[in-house]
């Protein structure tokens, strides 16, 4: 925000005690320290926090707000606006399943039903063993070879129910 007038946000509410661990706290502070001089630093900071902690914990929001001289409402508003930022701790793997039209044309609606049944969760849910969180995504850019999904950052195309089961077993084996 270097191009804007400096301002000071006056906290009108006493912050409640943070439940972040020392390591989490230092990860958040480190991200802020490293990136806060960038113009429009908030998204890069949130990406760094989610990369380090796998989500953006509620208590990180207050800390980020203070470090970037923003209000908690401003930071919360941004975190909750973008689908990619997770506000709850996800499973060990995050599975993004494409819901967009090109994948629908290749039977993704049936695949979606299979995935939900197999995982026993709906979108935004985490399996009971804590291995997988299911998230919807609108287009992964693999529209000629759908249905598509992404596990962590790995893209897969032409996913059938059988292929999904194999990928799931593989992910669970890894961790």
């Amino acid at each position, binding site marked *: 925000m270097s191009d804007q007038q400096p301002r000071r946000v006056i906290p009108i509410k006493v912050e409640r005690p943070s439940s972040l661990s020392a390591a989490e706290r230092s990860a958040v502070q480190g991200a802020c320290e490293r990136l806060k001089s960038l113009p429009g630093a908030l998204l890069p900071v949130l990406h760094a926090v989610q990369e380090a902690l796998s989500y953006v914990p509620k208590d990180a929001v207050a800390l980020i707000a203070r470090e970037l001289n923003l209000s908690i409402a401003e930071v919360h508003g*941004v975190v909750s606006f973008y*689908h990619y930022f997770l506000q709850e701790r996800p499973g060990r793997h995050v599975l993004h399943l494409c819901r967009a*039209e090109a994948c629908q044309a290749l039977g993704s609606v049936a695949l979606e039903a299979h995935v939900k049944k197999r995982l026993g969760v709906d979108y935004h849910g985490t399996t009971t063993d804590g291995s997988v969180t299911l998230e919807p995504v609108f287009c992964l850019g693999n529209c000629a070879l759908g249905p598509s999904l992404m596990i962590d950052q790995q893209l897969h195309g032409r996913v059938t129910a059988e292929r999904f089961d194999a990928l799931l077993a593989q992910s669970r084996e890894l961790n």
Partner: protein
Amino acid sequence: MKIYVPRDASALAMGADLTAAAIAAEARRRGIEIELIRNGSRGLLWLEPLVEIDVAGTRMAYGPVPAEVVPNLFEAGFTDGKPHALGHGATEEIPYFKKQNRLTFARVGLTDPRSLDDYLAHGGYRGLSAALALAPAEIVAQVTASGLRGRGGAAFPAGIKWKTVLGAQNGQKYVVCNADEGDSGTFSDRMLMEGDPFVLIEGMTIAGLATGADRGFIYLRWEYPQAKLALEAAIAAARAGNYLGPDIRGSGKAFDLEVRMGAGAYICGEETSLLESLEGKRGQVRFKPPLPALEGLFGKPTVINNVITFASVPIILDRGAEFYQHFGMGRSRGTLPMQLAGNIKFGGLVEIAFGMTLRELLYEYGGGSYSGRPLRAVQVGGPLGAYLPESQFDTPLDYEAFAAIKGMLGHGGIVAFDDSVDMAAQARYAMEFCAIESCGKCTPCRIGSTRGVEVIDRLVAGDNAAQQETILRDLCETLTYGSLCALGGLTPYPVISALNHFPQDFVKPARAASASG
């Protein structure tokens, strides 16, 4: 011996990394020395992973090559370009590829996307050299004369935008690339950034020279991690080669840029939302005016264009406006990289001059449906584009021709559906998508989309259907005229086109019959 295995995300999704590893291992085992190059995709996506081998200067294609076939390929002598069941002869002689007009995508799939030397060896940075010899107004004049219109979807003349920024008051200006390619059925931005990132960097640098901006941002969607890696490698190489930085090639002119990641918001493909997001805010649409060209990023004059728009600029500067202008029809000049997607046999990227009909593209290139059933509907231009029935397949690919049938060419994405599609479900999805992705600024979009889902549910259930249809059409009109941006304004396109062209899908008895039959 050079062997090419793409690192394009679509190729990786089909196992290209495993194929590359298998080729390296098999070559080692046989004591054959190879140079493995991870190129971009040629765009013949149904053949991915497409392995190419350089035989005496000719690239021979084999595909799709899963890892387990690799030993067999070596056995058959593919290193000498010998025939194999998966062989397709010379890549550039494959009709799907040969018939195209590859201007913007000239190097995609051909070169090593992370090698500056390879880029230079294939005509890279000639556009910048030409631009460095011109005054800013002369560069803008070239872009204007080429007839290049914004390739992101709105098709606004690029030269006019650039001229406005050039004429804006001095001080800090920005060049922003919209790489938030969120339309389903589109992947040309991704393929270009992964396959030839330097051409985007070159185009943005020329835009900086033309408008007096020295700082650029590429706003990239998080769903494209491979594109991020390719861009960052190319930016580092361009800096090291003095093609970016405080003194570009000794010209005394400065330009540098960085990649910023989006976070999963379709609306951030709308330019003013994108600027809000770059500023670190919620991606909410801004009122216009002021135009971003005058008050854009951080309130400063900003050139904001799509990936393909910027990437088309180097060839215009290199070969001249007339060369580019010569392609196309009517007011749609040059080429458009079309993307064949969805239920299509030969899906991929087809860069062609404007003017070909949709039917030629679907059948001569696409080969009909992937499922083998008849094509019933095609959505052109992303989730906000109209659903076209077979009777409209003869529409030429031209911005004005599509506008005339209440459709849009948009970013060139074509999603094909076979006859198993339920068009009422597609119309409902369009409203649902709008509800999920609305930024919330305009009431018709924020609330009307949810009401739209409910009305379609009642209509399909046969709950006073005639009245529901009236309400739905009325609601769509409110969305069209009461929304600031294209999300609310164009969501009625897929809804109304589905309703107009496929009314039988919205009628209860017909649905019950087709479900049981």
